């Protein structure tokens, strides 16, 4: 790649590294940077080791992976649907995942089962939207979008129904899940590996995606096999979103705002935007989660609140400045 393409990525990579260092260094228990450093190199008290290695580090990595997955999924959805409002959740994915997760919570189950149930719900929602949008007619972005939006509204009703009939003591957990909360995350590694693999996979496809973003006719005319590409984007974006939702509940806004922010600054070249989304989305969520942990500690906030509070003004500012 040429220099102007790699430069922003290097800057973003440095930014995400700084965010991760901050996130590991800051917590409700104060530790000096020297102490944190010592722990990283295998020193420090056993309490400090527990805090940094068992609590902060996995959570930071999970936040990064989740943010990256959501942002890449958002960028892909926007290319696929050629609609600036598309985000990973617009097709009812988070709704399906939420219904799965809340059902597990309603049954009094926790941990792995909630995650698994959320993943199953997200995949079911994907298949449903895809099957219905396919229908008997042609498969167009607007048809897909409309199907997704209506299915999402249906999930919304089911979620409200479940909240209304669930016992009071289960409500807080459910609400936290719906607002998104990284403290649900277990091992961050599968998501990180997936994020990395998808970025690698998308590099050779960047050119085709650029053409597709301009419209399927043009893409077809330029020799891109549109249908398989669209299918692949859809499945990939669904998989990314489902993984992210499984990690941390439904965190809104990252998938919508991060790709747009980057496009306003870097232009609309998918070869650059997609890896940049992975880095910037991860950075945003790491910072947001750090704030969620410490702003009113020991009370903990759902990270979804912070991503929206950070994302909205930044986005509006960039949008305002762009014209």
């Amino acid at each position, binding site marked *: 790649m040429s220099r102007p393409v790699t430069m922003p990525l290097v800057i973003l990579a440095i930014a995400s590294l700084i965010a991760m260092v901050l996130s590991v260094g800051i917590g409700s228990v104060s530790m000096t940077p020297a102490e944190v450093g010592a722990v990283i190199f295998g020193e420090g008290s056993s309490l400090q080791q527990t805090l940094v290695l068992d609590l*902060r580090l996995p959570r930071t990595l999970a936040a990064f992976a989740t943010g990256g997955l959501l942002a890449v999924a958002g960028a892909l959805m926007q290319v696929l649907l050629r609609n600036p409002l598309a985000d990973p959740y617009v097709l009812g994915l988070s709704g399906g995942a939420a219904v799965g997760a809340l059902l597990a919570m309603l049954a009094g189950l926790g941990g792995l089962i*909630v995650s698994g149930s959320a993943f199953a719900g997200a995949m079911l929602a994907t298949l449903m939207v895809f099957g219905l949008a396919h229908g008997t007619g042609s498969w167009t972005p607007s048809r897909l979008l409309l199907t997704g939006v209506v299915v999402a509204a249906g999930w919304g009703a089911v979620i409200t129904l479940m909240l209304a009939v669930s016992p009071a003591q289960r409500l*807080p957990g459910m609400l936290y899940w719906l607002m998104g909360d990284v403290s649900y995350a277990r091992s961050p590694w599968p998501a990180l590996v997936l994020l990395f693999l998808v970025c690698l996979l998308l590099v050779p496809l960047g050119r085709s995606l650029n053409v597709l973003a301009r419209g399927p006719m043009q893409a077809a005319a330029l020799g891109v096999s549109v249908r398989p590409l669209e299918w692949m984007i859809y499945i990939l974006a669904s998989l990314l979103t489902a993984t992210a939702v499984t990690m941390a509940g439904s965190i809104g806004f990252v998938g919508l705002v991060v790709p747009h922010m980057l496009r306003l600054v870097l232009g609309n070249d998918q070869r650059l935007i997609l890896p940049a989304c992975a880095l910037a989305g991860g950075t945003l969520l790491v910072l947001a989660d750090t704030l969620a942990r410490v702003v009113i500690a020991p009370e903990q906030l759902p990270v979804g609140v912070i991503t929206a509070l950070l994302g909205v003004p930044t986005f509006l500012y960039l949008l305002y400045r762009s014209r």
Partner: protein
Amino acid sequence: MRYLAARLLTVFLAALPAAWHIPLQAAQVCATDDTGKEVCLERPASRIAALSPGATELVWAAGAGDKVVAVVSFSDYPEEAKDVPSVGSHTRMDLERLMELQPDLVIGWVTGNPPEQIEALRDLGLPVFSIEPRSFEGVSHTIERLSQLAGTEAEGFAEAARFREGIGSLERQYRNAEPVSVFYQVWDEPLMTVNNEHLIGKVITLCGGVNVFGDLDRLVPRISAEAVIGANPEAILAGGMGEENRHWLTRWEAFPSIDATASDNLYFVPPSLIQRPTPRMLQGSQLFCEKLDDARAKR
């Protein structure tokens, strides 16, 4: 792995003197929690984290209040509990702060704490004893078990016995009392009550009351005002978040067709005395029974 090795070593070292000197000074203590899990400690707990306001009260009742190092929000009883560091809300704890306080026993709340956080605490090597008393005997039994884990059996068993006797004497007193149909209002908007399985439902039965919504399936059913008017209770009792909520009761004054309104049997019972499964329920139950006596006297 290192924790495990260290722990095994400690157990081994602790077992060594047993070979020569009997009895063992630091004896292992065990108790089974309300999820059926047996929790064993090498020695009685000395630093306890109580992850619900009710658990805090119960640990104090067990005589181990001075060993509590961490509580959650709204742990407002006894007064000393307010001075203990909080680790956030029971629905979302600050695990980092909790670890910093280095508890050697965590008292969880079966349905109140998020399962994944409890799991995380266990993964970090902390013994978690989850409780949720669902009956008067459950309250006594929980106090006893907590005192065993904290090594304060003398205080704990005495307090458990006091509670057991107090409830027993109310039971004897009201066994043959004339039934009074009761509506207990947990919340105002939405209107919520309890069924007979709920501990408050058991207080109603204890006092010779008949819960008009006792047979509903859900523990805390949401109902309509119409259902209350239709059930026509002879007494209406309300709790709530604060002690000053007469307006919850005044809403019923608009319906003189309800027996409770006609006889002016609209009573307030301080929720803090009745809505937590702790020894204070004895006082709350006595108060509750007095209100029903008052209703009987108006016949």
